[in-house]
């Protein structure tokens, strides 16, 4: 099994490990709920070095990414980031990712761990006719420092001024790449750098009593934040419009061609499903795979959990587009009432529903 350069540190901190797509990663260090609340109320540090970093360099780097991503990097300024998906020719989602633009000829993409082979093959296949080179940065790691106190904390620890680094932008300081992005719904930063440098930052954070956060809390935080997990809330069988991601398919520049553009134009008109938030009104816990019933129509919970912040069970569900207000979920064959909601549930420490 793969391990990140911080495996030994996780072990010393008492992590319980889980096999996450072939990576032995910490699921929690004692209590997932405490870790979750640390990020909502204070701050926490995550090792997310299992994710993949691809750099794109060349005179046609922007042209290439405008073709392979559904969202349009053409509208992004230098030193800013953009969320997007990549799809196959049918408009089915291969992965979601964040792209960072240094300039028209230099970009960085961070994509999921579980999809590495498919994403790499996708880029390699499509890049051939562009003057652009793909570099998989397997010697770099990623730390996420998330929570309302992350800005002041990083500033004082690393002696940096982050006031110029607004949401979805990034700075490069010495050998560190620091972006104001994350997967928690809180203010926060992701730091990419060489293992040795990141290990120093990790150790510094731990010495300052910043809580290490496992993948368990990462998952409950992102569900509260209404953010999709690829492979769970969406797969290659799903298009962006039924995955609450219609907003990342950018048709504004009619001159721009991109993979599955024609197909996605049709899907946008004919799409029959949507991804929504669900809140369980009765006792129990929502889980992925549970059926949603309303009259004779059916949907499905894609992610379900207990929300440590709301102290209620919440989830994401794919339902027909005309389902709103309320429905039933089948838990162990019992129909229980759920409220259908728009996402997110929680943003920056506030309950949004």
């Amino acid at each position: 099994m793969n391990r990140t350069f911080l495996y030994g540190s996780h072990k010393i901190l008492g992590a319980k490990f889980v096999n996450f797509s072939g990576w032995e990663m910490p699921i929690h260090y004692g209590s997932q709920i405490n870790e979750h609340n640390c990020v909502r109320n204070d701050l926490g540090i995550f090792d997310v070095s299992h994710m993949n970093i691809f750099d794109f360099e060349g005179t046609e780097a922007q042209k290439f990414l405008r073709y392979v991503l559904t969202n349009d990097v053409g509208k992004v300024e230098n030193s800013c980031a953009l969320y997007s998906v990549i799809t196959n020719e049918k408009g089915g989602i291969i992965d979601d990712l964040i792209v960072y633009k240094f300039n028209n000829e230099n970009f960085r993409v961070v994509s999921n761990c579980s999809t590495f082979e498919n994403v790499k093959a996708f880029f390699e296949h499509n890049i051939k006719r562009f003057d652009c080179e793909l570099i998989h940065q397997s010697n770099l790691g990623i730390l996420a420092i998330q929570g309302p106190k992350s800005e002041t904390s990083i500033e004082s620890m690393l002696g940096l001024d982050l006031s110029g680094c607004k949401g979805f932008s990034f700075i490069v300081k010495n050998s560190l790449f620091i972006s104001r992005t994350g997967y928690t719904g809180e203010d926060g930063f992701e730091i990419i750098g060489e293992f040795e440098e990141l290990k120093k930052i990790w150790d510094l954070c731990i010495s300052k009593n910043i809580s290490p956060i496992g993948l368990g809390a990462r998952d409950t935080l992102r569900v509260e934040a209404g953010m999709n997990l690829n492979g769970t809330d969406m797969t290659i069988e799903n298009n962006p419009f039924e995955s609450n991601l219609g907003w990342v398919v950018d048709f504004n520049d009619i001159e721009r061609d991109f993979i599955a553009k024609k197909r996605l134009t049709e899907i946008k008109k004919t799409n029959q499903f949507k991804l929504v938030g669900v809140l369980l009104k009765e006792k129990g816990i929502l889980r992925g795979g549970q059926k949603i019933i309303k009259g004779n129509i059916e949907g499905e919970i894609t992610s379900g959990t207990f929300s440590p912040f709301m102290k209620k069970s919440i989830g994401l569900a794919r339902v027909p587009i005309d389902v709103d207000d309320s429905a039933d979920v089948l838990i162990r064959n019992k129909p229980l009432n759920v409220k259908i909601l728009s996402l997110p549930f929680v943003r920056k420490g506030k309950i949004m529903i």
Partner: protein
Amino acid sequence: MNETPSDLKFLDTHEWIKIDDDAVIVGISDHAQSELGDVVFVELPAIGDEFVSGDEAAVVESVKAASEVYTPLSGEVIEVNEVLEENPELVNTSPYEDGWFFKLKVTDENLGSADNMMTADEYLSWLDGNN
């Protein structure tokens, strides 16, 4: 880590029983609660429910997953730990005391099958062998 009381008997599905006259109290082991993580919901049987050993009698859900609790012996539910409905975290903090699930009335004949269950020491060494 919670001390494992020596008067309990254990199953390989990680339930424990404590014999109390003609009844047994059922819960899940410290190892089981630790594997589950933070427990956030418990579904208990109803008083009067009758089970055959091996039946699914309760459900325990942590933040990450749902697990069944199987009844180790055949019998009738005579008491349930209702406190768990409001305080499911007791399963984590006190798996052998306050975190018990339900109490079954069992016949002498059925109680005999408890002899085949693991003692606390046997259970702990069985766990060690599996890790």
